[in-house]
C-alpha cells in the first residue's frame, strides 16, 4: 500500500507523559519536525526536552497522545524507528574504555553497516570531526569537544534519516561547537538528514530552520527564528557605558518592572523592554539606541511573560570586606602542576584585586579546573607561588581556605539531605555555632527564596534551585573571596541572569570573585579575565582590551580567533 508522503518527519500529537508520583514532564504537547532541516528544541532545564527526545526514540511509552516518525507510529513499532534513527544522549553514550575506532566499529555493527561500506563511511566522518589522528586513543582520554564529535560520528555512522541530539554542546568549547555545526549542516545538505536538537544555547537556536519553544512540558510556540523576533521589534536597546558604571546600571535596570531583560554585552548593556519604547535611565549620559533583536531576547521575554517574576536575590552581607583600596587579593606567579610527566598547568600568572570579578576561561582540558583546585588548596602546587588573601598556599592552605567560599562544579550538595539540612551542615563545616549559625541559615533561606523548599531533598530540586542552594552554602560564612567553578553549566537563561545579578551585587559590596566558565557571553560580566590554552595564559585583560586586541566584535569570536592563530 503506498503511504502518503508525510510532510512532517516527526509529528507529535497531544502527548502527555507523567512520572509518578508527581512529575508531569509533558502536558498535551504537540509539534511537527520539518524533514531535511535542523529544528531546535529550546527550553529551560526541566522543561521536558530530554523526555521528549526519549519518547521519540521509543525509549519511553507515552501516557496519552502519539508520535509518528516518517509515518510510522513509534509506540507501535519502536524497532522500525530505531533502525532509522541516530540518538545522542546527553553524555554522548560513548564507552570510555574503548578506543575511538572501537567505539565506531561497535556502533557500525549495532546499526548493521556492512563491512565493505565502512571505509567509505568512516573516512569523511573522521576527517570532519578531526578525529583521524586519534583513532587509537581511549574515548575516556578525549577532551569534551572531541567526545562530543565522536558521539556524533557514532550516531552518524549508520546513516540515519533522523538525528536526535540532546544538548550536544553542553560543556564544550566554542571551537568544537562550531565544528559540530559544520558537520550537521554538511549532513543535512548532502543526505537530507532531519535533525532535532535540544539546546540551552540560544545563539545556536538562531542557526536552526525552526525552533520549538518548550516550557513546563508545554509548547510555547514553534516557528522560524526570524518570526519569533517580530514581536520584539522596537523593544531591544543597547546602552553604551563605561565599565565603571556598568554594573550599577545593570542592577538598576533589572529592578525596573518595565524591563524584561538586561545583560552585559561588549561595551554596554543590552535591554529588553516590556513595551516598544526605550528604557528610562537615571544616568543622563546613557543613551539607549534601538538594536536588532536576537532569539535570546525573545526567549527570555516569552518566559517572563509566563507570569514568571524573575527572582533577583538581594544579598546583603553583614560583614563587608574593607572597600576602597584595590589591593591584590589573589596573586599567582609562575604556577605549575605536573601529573606524571604531563604538565596540566605550565607557568600561569595573574593578579586579582579586591572587589574584582575575575574570569578563568578556556576550553575543556585547558587547565582551568586544575588551576582552580590549586588556588582552593585542594591540589598541591608543583612549582610557583600563589597567595590567597595573604596566605601562602604552599605553606598555609587551610588558612587560605578559611577566607574563601567555594562552589564546586556540579554544586556538590548532599542529595539526600533536605535544603535546610544542607545549610545547617555547611554552616557547621564553616565553623558557625549557636545563634550565629541559626541566623545565617535563616538568612540563606530567606535571601535565596528557599524557605518553601526547606524540607525538600536537595536531589529533587530543579537545577536552578540547586544552584541557588549551593551559592547559599558558599556564602554562609560571608567570605571575602568567592571561588565559583563552572557555576552556570547546564543552567537555563533565567537562572543564569539571576546568578549574575547576585554576583554583581556581591562584587559591589567588595567581595572578590574568581569564576571559571566556558560561556563566552558570560565572560563579558568579568572585570578582567585570562584565557587558558594547553596550560598557559593565552591572553589576559579586560573584555574590552581582549576584543580590541583581536579586532573581534565579541569575546567568543576573539577566543576562536586566538585559538586558530595558535593551531
Amino acid at each position, binding site marked *: 500500500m503506498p503511504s502518503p508522503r508525510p510532510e512532517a518527519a516527526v509529528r507529535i500529537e497531544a502527548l502527555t507523559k507523567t512520572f509518578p508520583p508527581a512529575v508531569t514532564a509533558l502536558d498535551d504537547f504537540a509539534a511537527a519536525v520539518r524533514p531535511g532541516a535542523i529544528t531546535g528544541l529550546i527550553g529551560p532545564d526541566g522543561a521536558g526536552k530530554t523526555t521528549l527526545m526519549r519518547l521519540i*526514540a*521509543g525509549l519511553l511509552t507515552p501516557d496519552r497522545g502519539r508520535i509518528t516518525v516518517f509515518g510510522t507510529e513509534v509506540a507501535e513499532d519502536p524497532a522500525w524507528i530505531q533502525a532509522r534513527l541516530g540518538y545522542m*544522549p546527553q553524555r554522548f553514550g560513548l564507552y570510555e574504555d574503548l578506543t575511538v575506532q572501537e567505539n565506531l566499529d561497535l556502533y557500525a555493527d*549495532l*546499526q548493521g553497516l556492512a563491512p565493505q561500506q565502512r571505509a567509505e563511511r568512516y573516512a569523511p566522518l573522521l576527517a570532519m570531526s578531526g578525529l583521524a589522528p586519534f583513532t587509537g586513543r581511549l574515548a575516556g582520554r578525549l577532551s569534551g569537544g572531541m567526545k562530543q564529535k565522536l558521539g556524533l560520528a*557514532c550516531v552518524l555512522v549508520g546513516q540515519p534519516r533522523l538525528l536526535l541530539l540532546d544538548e550536544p554542546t553542553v560543556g564544550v568549547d566554542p571551537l568544537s561547537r562550531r565544528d559540530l555545526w559544520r558537520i550537521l549542516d554538511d549532513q543535512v545538505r548532502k543526505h537530507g538528514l532531519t535533525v532535532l536538537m535540544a539546546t540551552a544555547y540560544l545563539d545556536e537556536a538562531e542557526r536552526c530552520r525552526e525552533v520549538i519553544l518548550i516550557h513546563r512540558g508545554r509548547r510555547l510556540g514553534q516557528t522560524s527564528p526570524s518570526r519569533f523576533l517580530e514581536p520584539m521589534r522596537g523593544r531591544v536597546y543597547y546602552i553604551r557605558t563605561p565599565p565603571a558604571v556598568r554594573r550599577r546600571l545593570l542592577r538598576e535596570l533589572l529592578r525596573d518592572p518595565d524591563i524584561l531583560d538586561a545583560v552585559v554585552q561588549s561595551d554596554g548593556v543590552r535591554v529588553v523592554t516590556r513595551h516598544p519604547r526605550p528604557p528610562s535611565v537615571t544616568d543622563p549620559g546613557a543613551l539607549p539606541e534601538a538594536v536588532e533583536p536576537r532569539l535570546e531576547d525573545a526567549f527570555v521575554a516569552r518566559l517572563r511573560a509566563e507570569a514568571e517574576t524573575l527572582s533577583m536575590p538581594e544579598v546583603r552581607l553583614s560583614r563587608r570586606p574593607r572597600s576602597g583600596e584595590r589591593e591584590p587579593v589573589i596573586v599567582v606567579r609562575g604556577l605549575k602542576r605536573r601529573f606524571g610527566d604531563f604538565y596540566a598547568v605550565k607557568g600561569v600568572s595573574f593578579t586579582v584585586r579586591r572587589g574584582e570579578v575575575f574570569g578563568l576561561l578556556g576550553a575543556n582540558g585547558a587547565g582551568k579546573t586544575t588551576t582552580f583546585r590549586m588556588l582552593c588548596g585542594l591540589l598541591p602546587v608543583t612549582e610557583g607561588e600563589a597567595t590567597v588573601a595573604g596566605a601562602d598556599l604552599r605553606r598555609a592552605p587551610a588558612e587560605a581556605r578559611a577566607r574563601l567560599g567555594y562552589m564546586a562544579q556540579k554544586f556538590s550538595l548532599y542529595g539526600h539531605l533536605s535544603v535546610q539540612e544542607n545549610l545547617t551542615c555547611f554552616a557547621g563545616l564553616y565553623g558557625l555555632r549557636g545563634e550565629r549559625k541559626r541566623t545565617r541559615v535563616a538568612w540563606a533561606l530567606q535571601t535565596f527564596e528557599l524557605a518553601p523548599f526547606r524540607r525538600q531533598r536537595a536531589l529533587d530540586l530543579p537545577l536552578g534551585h540547586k544552584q541557588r542552594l549551593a551559592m547559599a552554602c558558599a556564602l554562609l560564612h560571608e567570605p571575602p573571596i568567592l571561588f565559583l567553578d563552572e557555576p552556570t553549566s547546564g543552567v537555563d537563561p533565567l537562572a543564569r541572569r539571576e546568578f549574575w545579578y547576585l554576583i554583581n551585587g556581591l562584587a559591589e559590596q567588595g567581595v572578590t570573585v574568581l569564576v571559571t566558565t566556558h560561556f563566552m557571553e558570560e565572560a563579558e560580566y568579568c572585570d578582567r579575565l585570562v584565557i587558558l590554552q594547553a596550560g598557559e595564559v593565552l591572553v589576559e585583560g579586560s573584555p574590552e582590551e581582549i576584543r580590541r586586541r583581536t579586532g573581534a566584535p565579541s569575546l567568543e569570536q576573539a577566543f576562536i580567533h586566538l585559538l586558530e592563530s595558535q593551531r
Partner: protein
Amino acid sequence: MNRRITALVRKEFIQVIRDPSSIAIAFVLPVILLLLFGYGVSLDAKRVPLALVAERPDPAAQSFLSGFYRSPYFVPVPVERMADAERLLEAGAVKGIVHLRADFGRRLLGGGEAPIQLIVDGIDANTARLVQGYVTDVWLTWLQRRADAERLPAAIPIPLESRIWYNAEVESRNFLVPGLIAVIMTLIGALLTALVIAREWERGTMEALMSTPVTMGEILLGKIVTYFLLGTGGLLLSVAMALWLFDVPLRGSFWLLWLGASLFLLTALGMGLLISTVTRNQFVAGQIAIIVTFLPAFILSGFIFEIRSMPTAIQWLTHLVPARYFVAFLQTVFLAGDIGAVIWPNLAALAVMAALFLGRTWQISRKRLE
C-alpha cells in the same frame, strides 16, 4: 551468532580487560581465594602442641608417651610439673595436657586401673574435638601394641577398624578447594555481571545502546555469552589449580563437572542480570549481589559449614541457595566420583533455578528506560 551479538561480546571483553576492577573480580580474586583456601585455611588439626607430664618417667610412662612423638598430629612439649603445663595451657602455648601420675607404671604393672588424665583447651571446639580424637587414637594404638608384644588378651574385646573413604587422608583442602569453585563462579556470574550492567546504566551507555536497532534479547545474550565464557575460564583455572597445585583428586568425569558448572553459571548469571535490571546503580547492585549471592555461597552452601548441623530454619533456607546444590555436586564429583543418586537431583535443582532466574529476567526486561 549474528553480528550485533558478536560486536557486543567483543566490546564486553575489551572492557573487562581494560578495567582493573573487572580484572580483579574475574582473575585476581579467584586466584587469591584458591591460594588462601588451598594453603592457608585448614580445618584439620596438625602439629598441635601438646604438653606431656610424666611425674615419674619410668619405662611404662615412656612407652606410652613415645606414641605422641610418632604421631604427625602433635608437637610434644615435655614438662616436668603439672603446674608448669597448666601455665602453658593458659598462655595458649599448648592445646592440651596429657598427665601421667607418679604411680602410673606401678598400677599398670600391678594389673589394676592406670588412669591417664587428658585436659583439652576447649576454646576452639573443632580443634578440641580433633585433639581428643587423636589422643584416643594414640592410646588405642599403644594398647594394641602392648597386647601384641606381651601376648596378653586384647584390652578391648572388639577392636574397631575404621576406614575413611573418599578423602582418605582427611585433608580439609580436598573438600574446600572444589567447593570454592562455587564461590568463584558466583563472583564472576553474579557480582561482576550485576556491576557491569549497572555501570552501563550509570554512564548512559545503556540509553545509547537501546536507541540502536539492537534488541533487548541481543543485549542480554551479549552479556550472558561474555560472562559465561569468563566463568568457564574461572572454572578451568580452579580445576587446574585444584588438580596440579593442591593434588585434589578428580574421581568423576570432567565433562560431568563441566555440565554442572555450566548450569550453575547460568543460574548465577540469571541472578546477576536480575539484580542489575531491578537496580540501575553500581553501589546498590554490588551490595545486593554480595548479600544475596556471594555470602550465601560462602556460608549457606555447605562449602565450609555442614548444612546438617545448622538450625532447622536455616537448613530450610539453604534450599533457596543455588550454590548449595552445586557444592554438593562438586564435592561428590571430585572426591567420590560419578554417583548418580547425588548428582542428578542436584543438577535438576540447578536447571530449575537457572530457568527461573533467566526466565524472570527475560520477562521483565523491556527496551525502555522506565
